């Protein structure tokens, strides 16, 4: 197995990603949709394959050798992932994806508010009543908005939100938190604008009123150093497949005392302490939230992805993406009709550039890019309210990862100019 030691982001590591050598529509693939899902290096695939071929068994049950080895591999993966994000292993819950992680948290509020605490001590801190408020932001991905709408529908709580400025930054003056605010749920980095809201300031305000802070870390954890203890958030969710890992696995982080007070989500095997015909008691976290036989090979693959990213260095990856973002801003802005969304600087933003092309719908731009082998996201990127706020139905989004290079960004700019000419010609 080749090791990424001493290699730099860009073409140097791209060789680890077999899919990047594929041709699409007669052109070498230029993959600029890592914000939706990232590609996987062979180190991740090899780790998963090794596990399946040598150790595969149902974890946390059975006494045979494979069961023991599989359980060790699964728990070792949890420890690796915990270290990667500055958490402790028992604060890391494996979920299907980040969406499920956020729904897990939402369901804790719904259940506790209905008095269904599962006998969990301290669950009242998840109780919401009419008059209580949940605060989100106008730039959330639907995954960190719709579950909170549902919580409000179940509990009678009121949903409020921080607005977004014309520049695409969080408008801190748009609302005030109060004693009624019980939850503040926000993104660490917008999946459309790449903007990073001022988390420290929002967290401080939330702490002042005793509200819990829930972080959508899907777009931050894969792209730069993140220390969840340092951030001081109560709960955070992210996905494996956006950080060079497998699909079907995500992480919910919760501070130890927060997870300890959370009622269970999915129930059944693995998550119990005792079961009788009439009632059951539940295991301590993280097992309380991992019902059924879990995704072991995916956990192993995700840990391998963390190792891979760590070897290259998260700070180096962040710097690399900043360079690509700056290049994209510089190359796209002179193209007639291109309107960049969000700030025109790389301050407090990650490796995402979204834009519209005047007079040409995003779908049609995407089609021209695809014909040149360039994969971008078009549409509202599961952030419809943000697009409404910006006054546009859809946008084109290029998002970067460790395997992208300046050439990819220049190919994008060329193809956008081609799209402009294609639809202007007739």
């Amino acid at each position, binding site marked *: 197995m080749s090791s990424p030691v001493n290699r730099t982001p860009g073409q140097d590591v791209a060789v680890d990603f077999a899919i990047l050598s594929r041709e699409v*529509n007669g052109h070498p693939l230029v993959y600029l949709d890592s914000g939706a899902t990232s590609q996987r290096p062979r180190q991740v695939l090899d780790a998963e394959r090794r596990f399946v071929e040598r150790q595969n068994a149902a974890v946390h049950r059975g006494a045979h050798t494979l069961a023991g080895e599989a359980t060790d591999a699964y728990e070792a993966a949890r420890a690796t992932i915990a270290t990667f994000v500055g958490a402790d292993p028992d604060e890391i819950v494996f979920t299907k994806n980040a969406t499920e992680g956020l729904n897990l948290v939402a369901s804790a509020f719904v259940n506790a508010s209905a008095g269904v605490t599962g006998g969990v001590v301290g669950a009242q801190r998840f109780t919401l009543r009419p008059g209580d408020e949940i605060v989100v932001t106008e730039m959330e991905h639907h995954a960190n908005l719709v579950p909170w709408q549902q919580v409000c529908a179940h509990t009678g709580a009121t949903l409020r939100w921080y607005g977004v400025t014309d520049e695409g930054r969080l408008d801190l003056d748009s609302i005030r938190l109060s004693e009624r605010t019980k939850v503040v749920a926000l993104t660490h980095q917008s999946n459309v604008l790449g903007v990073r809201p001022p988390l420290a300031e929002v967290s401080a305000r939330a702490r002042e009123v005793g509200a819990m802070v829930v972080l959508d870390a899907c777009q931050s954890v894969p792209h730069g150093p993140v220390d969840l203890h340092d951030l001081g958030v109560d709960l955070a969710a992210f996905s494996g497949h956006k950080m060079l890992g497998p699909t079907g696995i995500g992480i919910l982080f919760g501070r130890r005392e927060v997870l300890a007070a959370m009622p269970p989500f999915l129930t059944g095997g693995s998550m119990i302490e005792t079961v009788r015909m009439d009632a059951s008691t539940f295991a301590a976290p993280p097992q309380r939230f991992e019902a059924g036989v879990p995704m072991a090979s995916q956990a192993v693959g995700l840990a391998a992805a963390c190792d891979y990213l760590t070897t290259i260095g998260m700070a180096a990856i962040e710097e690399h993406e900043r360079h690509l973002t700056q290049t994209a801003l510089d190359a796209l802005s002179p193209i007639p009709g291109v309107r960049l969304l969000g700030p025109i600087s790389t301050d407090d933003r990650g490796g995402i550039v979204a834009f519209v092309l005047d007079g040409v*719908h*995003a*779908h*049609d731009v995407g*089609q*021209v890019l695809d*014909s040149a082998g360039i994969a971008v996201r*078009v*549409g*509202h990127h599961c952030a*419809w309210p943000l*697009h409404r706020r910006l006054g546009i*139905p*859809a946008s084109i989004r290029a998002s970067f990862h460790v395997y992208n290079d300046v050439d990819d960004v220049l190919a994008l700019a060329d193809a956008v100019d081609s799209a402009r000419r*294609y*639809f202007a010609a*007739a």
Partner: protein
Amino acid sequence: MSDLDDLYREVILDHSRRPRGAGLRDPFSAEVYQVNPTCGDEVTLRVRLDGTGPRTVLADVSYESQGCAISMASTSVMAQWVTGAELPEVLEAYRAFQRLVARRPVSAQAVSAQADAAQADAAEADAGAADPRDLVELGDDDAAAFAGVAKYPARVRCAMLGWTALQQALLRGQPDQSGAVAATA
């Protein structure tokens, strides 16, 4: 003709730039709003129906839409085609257009097989263009320009957006014909 030109035929670009019969008009028998939730394309569409039963005439189709060239053009071509037609003809047009743009999903195996030059043509044919018989029975030249859509699974919903709105409007505006209309779904 490049693949791109095959999708964006001149007729389609022209309809997308100058949608025929656009704008919402009164009076109307039913109004519906349809949206493509993956991209946010939307159309508000009204139908005016004259008469009852199978001889009902679709006297007017008016609409407001925003979306990609494919969805804008498709709604425009549809309005031009079916306005003034009797209900059975409208439903036949719907079915013919749907057959034209519908496409069978291609399996991962078939995509891999395309790497093998010997099988590439077969896979392409399997995945690709519409049955020429549909073009013949389509009976509308402008609509035939949408044959290229079949190669792009992500665009089928764009092409069908206005048609789906029409179907829903007919269901709402012609309850006694709902069986025939629903059968198009």
